[in-house]
């Protein structure tokens, strides 16, 4: 009998959040054709508290990967700020930025592409240790072995090359590499999306274990709501560069407020033939180059109203919790206060 978990609301955090994103805007210049600016992230705000898992959901074109990259300062945001322990990452000096880089680690979707093909696993794992000057040079190899053990791999993997491992093993190496600097936050961008279902289950178990034993916070980005439900304490839903709903996980899956979230929940294919999958959402998502005016979702919304075409919805908080991290926010005219 598989274990079932009753939802408990996450502990009330009165401490300030670990990571705070405020009104982040990320734009790219589009080459060729008529050119122009692509607004990948259009004013997104959310918080992640230490030791919690924040699930970020969105389909392709929602801007979630650009968000992850801009948090890591791989791409400079055009506006807004990213605060880590209250400090703005964009204004940090080199030394503090380096320390922050140690504390936030990234795991990507494609395990084969995220490991350097011509370097052995040992070289790949020791690279962050050397770069961040963690521990004494002589002990770094042992650390790498221990990291492999934590993710359930044998030390003999160290001599192998990425193409010699299965995708599940590679993804575990990527996780081991992310663990080595002992970060406080790991950003996992579609980290399990390209894995087989049984391997995915193993990585999910691993992430939960890491959160429990080491208190590492996760920003878990995915398009699969079922996977998100396995992991997240708090969930944010993005559409076309905007955050349209943020809620504690148990509330999102029980009482989703935004029509898009509801449509997403209905569209997830259920491994149960008796369950009919209604096609709720018609049409194609609009191009991110020319986003719709007003609410970005209004062109496909089954409950669209006149004001949705013109006015951008503002943040509404629809419950009344004690702590900030159990608040349920939605950006929708249906829920205007």
């Amino acid at each position, binding site marked *: 009998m598989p274990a079932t978990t009753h939802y408990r609301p996450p502990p009330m955090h009165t401490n300030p959040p670990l990571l705070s994103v405020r009104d982040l805007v990320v734009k790219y210049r589009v080459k060729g054709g008529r050119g122009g600016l692509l607004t990948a992230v259009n004013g997104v705000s959310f918080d992640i508290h230490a030791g919690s898992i924040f699930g970020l959901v969105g389909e392709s074109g929602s801007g979630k990967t650009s968000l992850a990259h801009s948090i890591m300062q*791989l791409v400079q945001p055009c506006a807004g700020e990213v605060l880590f322990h209250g400090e703005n990452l964009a204004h940090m000096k080199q030394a503090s930025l380096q320390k922050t880089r140690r504390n936030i680690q990234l795991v990507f979707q494609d395990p084969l592409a995220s490991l350097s093909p011509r370097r052995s696993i040992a070289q790949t794992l020791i690279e962050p240790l050397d770069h961040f000057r963690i521990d004494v040079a002589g002990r770094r190899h042992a650390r790498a072995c221990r990291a492999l053990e934590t993710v359930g791999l044998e030390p003999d993997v160290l001599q192998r090359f990425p193409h010699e491992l*299965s995708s599940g093993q590679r993804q575990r190496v990527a996780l081991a590499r992310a663990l080595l600097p002992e970060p406080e936050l790991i950003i996992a961008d579609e980290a399990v999306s390209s894995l087989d279902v049984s391997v995915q289950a193993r990585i999910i178990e691993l992430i939960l274990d890491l959160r429990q034993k080491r208190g590492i916070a996760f920003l878990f980005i995915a398009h699969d709501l079922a996977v998100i439900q396995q992991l997240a304490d708090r969930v944010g839903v993005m559409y076309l560069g905007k955050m349209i709903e943020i809620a504690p996980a148990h509330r999102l899956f029980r009482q989703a407020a935004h029509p898009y979230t509801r449509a997403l929940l209905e569209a997830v294919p259920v491994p149960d033939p008796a369950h009919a999958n209604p096609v709720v959402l018609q049409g194609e998502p609009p191009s991110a180059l020319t986003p719709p005016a007003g609410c970005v979702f209004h062109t496909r919304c089954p409950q669209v109203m006149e004001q949705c075409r013109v006015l951008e919805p503002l943040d509404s908080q629809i419950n009344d919790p004690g702590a900030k991290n159990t608040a349920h926010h939605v950006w929708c005219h249906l829920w205007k206060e």
Partner: protein
Amino acid sequence: MKSPRTLTLSTVFANDPFEPGPKGSRAWYKLRQDKSFVLGLAIVAIFLFLTLAVFFGWLGQGWSVASGGRWEPVSVNHWLGTNLLGQDIFQRAVFSLRTAFEIGLVVSLLSTLLGALLGALAGWYNGEPGRTWVDGGILWFMGVLDSIPFYLFVAAVAYALQGWPWAMHIAMVATFWTTTGRLIRAEAMRIKSREFVLSARAIGLPAPLILFRHVLPNTLHILLVQATISFVAAIKTEVILSFLGLGVQDSVSWGLMLAESTQEVLAGHFNNFLAASLMLFMLLLGFNLLADALQDAFDPRQASL
């Protein structure tokens, strides 16, 4: 009933999960089965051996000595006869091997290296806000070099640096590197967006380190093929330069022999011409076979199912 017919399918796993050894071993596996590779390698190996023999002084040392009469026929003393000045054709042809390899190696290694470095820099800084001038500048420079008619430019540089033994080499390196440069630039741009590079940037590794450790090693397949091709191109260019009188000065090369032989052929003596052109043909054939086989073996486009 007919027996079941067998079809064939191409290699199944593009990402073979448990292939032992570094990635190169799959390419070598393919290479070993490629007949043209084996043939090319054999030819080049023989020539290399002969070159070493010349280098160590066992063969071809008498290339400048007028040891016989004019236009002597093939004999035991002169395996391929003698030329206009009574020099032994065989000795000259074999010594020219050393010249050929020297030019080929120097030009191919230096031009490939230069192309790799500048190409990687250009590709890396392409699209980087604030630093696009690096890419722009290198591209502009490549464009300028490429727009000058090739032999004209090589000849002009060789002429200007005349007298200096390395004039010809410099001229060739200066023009050959752009091809490699463009290829590496394109590949660097492709590799730059791959996630293992993003990982390196995410932990804050500086750009030169990422280029040398992560980007360039993944372009080795291109560099190997380019080096082979430019080796061949260098030798062929030397032939033309020799015809223009801008080739080797105090040595002998096939180009020089061919240039000399134009007059001899008119007088009905073909040995010089045949010796030089046959040797040239064989060496270039060997290297071309190698280059083709290497290109096929490292072709990343394997059909996957």
